[in-house]
C-alpha cells in the first residue's frame, strides 16, 4: 500500500508538471509564474514548498529525541516568516528583482556582490537539498523495502521532470495542492492516534529532563542560537524568496506572507504531538526521523494502521518533492542566469548541477545527522549572509558594495566552516561542539558588524536615493524610481 501511495504522489506531480508545460511559454513564466497568482493560492504554494521533510518528519523525530527544547525549531521556522513579513516583504517585492542576486545587484550596483550572492544561493540550496534526498532514501527503503539508494534518485527524477516541464507556474499549482495534502496527511492519522492513546488510558510522560525546557547553560546557548538562526534565516532561503516575487505588488506580498503565517501555524501544531506520542510508544527507535511513520503501526495496527501509514508516506513524499522542486527551481535559476547565458534553455541545463550535486553527495554520504539538524544549518548559513544583506540593504542607505561583499564573505566562510566541521565530526558534547553546531549566535552579529564597519569607510552606490524610493513607496504613486531592470527578461 505504501508503494501505491508513493506512486500516486509521484504521478500526480508529474501530471501537474506536464500540464504546466502547455501554460509556460516565456522565460518570465518559467521563472516567476508571471505574477498572476492570487494571495491565498500563493500562500498555499509557499507553505507547500516550505514544509519539507524536516517539518513533516524531522520535527517529530527531534522532539522525540530531545524533548521540549526542540519545540523552538518549528516556532523559529514560523516566526521567521513574521520577521520576513515585517522587515523584508513589501520592499523586496518592490525592488523588481526576481532572485536574491538580482536584489544584490539592484541595490548595490556591483557585479562582485551579485556573483557572491549567486554562489551563496547555490550553496544554501545544496545544503538544504542534501538532507531531503538522504531522508527520501531512508523513508522509501523503510516503507517499501526498496534498496536504500533508490529514494533519492526517485525524488530527483520526478523533480527534474516537473521542473523541466513547467518551471515556476506548474509548480505553483502543485505546491498549493501539496500544502493541503501534507496538512491532511498529518492531521487525519493524529485523530486516530489520539483516540488510541485515550483508549490506552491517556498515559502521561514521566521523563522530566525531556519534558522540561532549558536544562543547563549549554542548552541555553544552543536554544538562543537556534532561535536566532531560524528566525533570521528564513528571509534568505532561495526557495522562499523566489516564490515571493509571484505577487502583483508590495501590498499583496505583505498579505500573502500574513496568510503564510496562518497556514504554517496550523501545520506546526501537529508534529509536537507526534513527538510526544513517540516518547510514549516508540521511545526505542534508533532512527527518530521515522517516528511519524512508525506510530500508526504501533498504536493501531491492522488495516487502519497500514492505510494511515500509506497516507503519511504520501505526505512525506509530497514534502520531499515540493521542497526539492522549489529549491531546484531557484538554484537552477541562479545558475542559469549567472553562470550560463540566461533564458529557458540555460535554466533547463542548469537543472542538472542544481540537483545532481546534492544527489551525488546524498548517495555518497551516510546520513549522520537528523534531517531537521541539517536543515537548521542551511538556516544558519542563510541567517549569516543574506539576512544582514537584506536588512541593511533595505533599511540603511549607508550599505555599500564593499561592505556587503565583506559581510557575505565573512558570514559565508565562518558558517560554512562550522557546518562542514559538524557534518564531518558528528554531534559532539561540550561547548566547542555546541558553538559549531549552532553557529548563528556568533556568526550573525559578526556579519552585521563587518557589513556596517566596512560600509562606513567606502563609497555608496550612485543611485541609492532612487533605489530607496523604489523599495519603499507604494507602486501607485508616480515618482522617479530609476530605470533598473532585472537581467535578460
Amino acid at each position: 500500500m505504501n508503494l501505491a501511495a508513493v506512486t500516486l504522489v509521484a504521478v500526480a506531480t508529474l501530471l501537474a508538471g506536464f500540464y504546466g508545460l502547455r501554460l509556460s511559454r516565456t522565460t518570465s513564466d518559467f521563472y516567476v509564474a508571471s505574477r498572476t497568482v492570487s494571495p491565498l493560492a500563493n500562500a498555499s504554494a509557499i507553505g507547500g514548498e516550505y514544509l519539507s521533510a524536516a517539518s513533516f518528519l524531522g520535527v517529530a523525530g527531534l522532539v522525540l529525541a530531545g524533548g521540549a527544547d526542540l519545540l523552538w525549531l518549528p516556532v523559529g521556522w514560523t516566526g521567521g516568516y513574521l520577521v520576513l513579513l515585517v522587515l523584508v516583504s513589501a520592499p523586496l517585492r518592490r525592488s523588481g528583482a526576481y532572485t536574491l542576486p538580482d536584489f544584490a545587484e539592484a541595490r548595490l550596483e556591483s557585479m562582485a556582490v551579485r556573483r557572491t550572492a549567486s554562489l551563496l544561493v547555490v550553496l544554501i540550496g545544496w545544503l538544504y537539498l542534501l538532507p531531503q534526498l538522504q531522508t527520501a532514501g531512508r523513508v522509501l527503503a523503510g516503507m517499501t523495502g526498496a534498496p536504500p539508494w533508490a529514494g533519492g534518485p526517485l525524488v530527483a527524477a520526478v523533480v527534474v521532470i516537473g521542473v523541466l516541464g513547467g518551471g515556476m507556474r506548474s509548480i505553483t499549482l502543485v505546491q498549493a495542492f501539496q500544502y493541503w495534502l501534507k496538512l491532511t496527511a498529518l492531521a487525519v492519522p493524529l485523530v486516530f492516534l489520539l483516540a488510541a492513546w485515550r483508549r490506552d488510558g491517556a498515559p502521561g510522560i514521566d521523563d522530566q529532563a525531556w519534558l522540561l525546557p532549558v536544562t543547563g547553560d549549554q542548552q541555553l546557548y544552543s536554544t538562543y542560537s537556534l532561535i536566532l538562526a531560524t528566525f533570521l534565516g528564513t528571509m534568505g532561503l532561495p526557495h522562499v524568496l523566489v516564490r515571493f516575487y509571484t505577487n502583483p505588488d508590495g501590498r499583496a506580498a505583505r498579505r500573502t506572507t500574513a496568510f503564510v503565517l496562518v497556514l504554517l501555524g496550523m501545520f506546526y501544531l501537529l508534529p509536537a504531538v507526534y513527538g510526544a506520542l513517540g516518547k510514549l510508544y516508540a521511545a526505542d527507535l534508533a532512527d527518530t526521523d521515522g517516528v511519524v511513520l512508525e506510530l500508526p503501526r504501533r498504536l493501531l495496527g491492522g488495516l487502519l494502521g497500514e492505510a494511515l501509514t500509506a497516507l503519511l508516506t504520501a505526505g512525506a513524499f509530497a514534502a520531499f518533492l515540493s521542497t526539492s522542486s522549489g529549491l531546484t527551481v531557484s538554484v537552477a535559476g541562479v545558475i542559469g542566469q549567472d553562470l550560463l547565458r540566461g533564458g529557458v534553455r540555460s535554466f533547463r541545463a542548469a537543472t542538472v548541477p542544481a540537483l545532481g550535486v546534492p544527489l551525488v553527495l546524498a548517495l555518497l554520504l551516510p546520513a549522520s545527522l537528523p534531517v531537521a539538524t541539517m536543515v537548521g544549518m542551511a538556516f544558519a548559513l542563510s541567517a549569516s549572509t543574506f539576512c544582514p544583506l537584506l536588512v541593511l540593504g533595505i533599511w540603511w542607505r549607508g550599505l555599500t558594495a564593499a561592505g556587503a561583499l565583506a559581510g557575505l564573505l565573512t558570514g559565508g566562510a565562518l558558517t560554512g566552516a562550522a557546518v562542514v566541521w559538524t557534518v564531518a565530526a558528528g554531534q559532539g558534547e561540550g561547548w566547542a561542539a555546541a558553538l559549531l553546531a549552532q553557529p548563528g549566535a556568533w556568526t550573525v552579529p559578526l556579519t552585521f558588524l563587518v557589513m556596517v564597519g566596512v560600509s562606513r569607510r567606502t563609497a555608496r552606490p550612485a543611485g541609492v536615493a532612487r533605489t530607496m524610493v523604489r523599495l519603499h513607496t507604494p507602486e501607485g504613486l508616480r515618482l522617479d524610481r530609476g530605470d533598473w531592470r532585472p537581467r535578460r527578461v
Partner: protein
Amino acid sequence: MSALVRSQLRLSLFVCTLLALLVGGLPLLLLLVPPLREARLLGLPLPWLLLAGAVYPVFAGLGWWYVRQAERNEKDFEDLVERR
C-alpha cells in the same frame, strides 16, 4: 519620503522588538522561574502549551496587525503626496 521610511522602519522594529522580547524572554523566564517550568494547565505542561500551541496564533495575529498598520502608513503617505 524619508518620513515614510522612518515610520515603516519604526513599525517594523516595534514588531521585531516585541517578537524578540517574547521569543528571547521565554527561555530565560522558564529558566529563572522554576515554578513556571513545571506548571500544568489542563493537565499539560505549560511550556508545551506555550511553545507548541499558543505561540502560533500570536504570530499570526501580530502579522495581520502589522499588515494593517503598514498599509495605513502607506495610505497616509499617498494622501500627503497627492495633496501636493
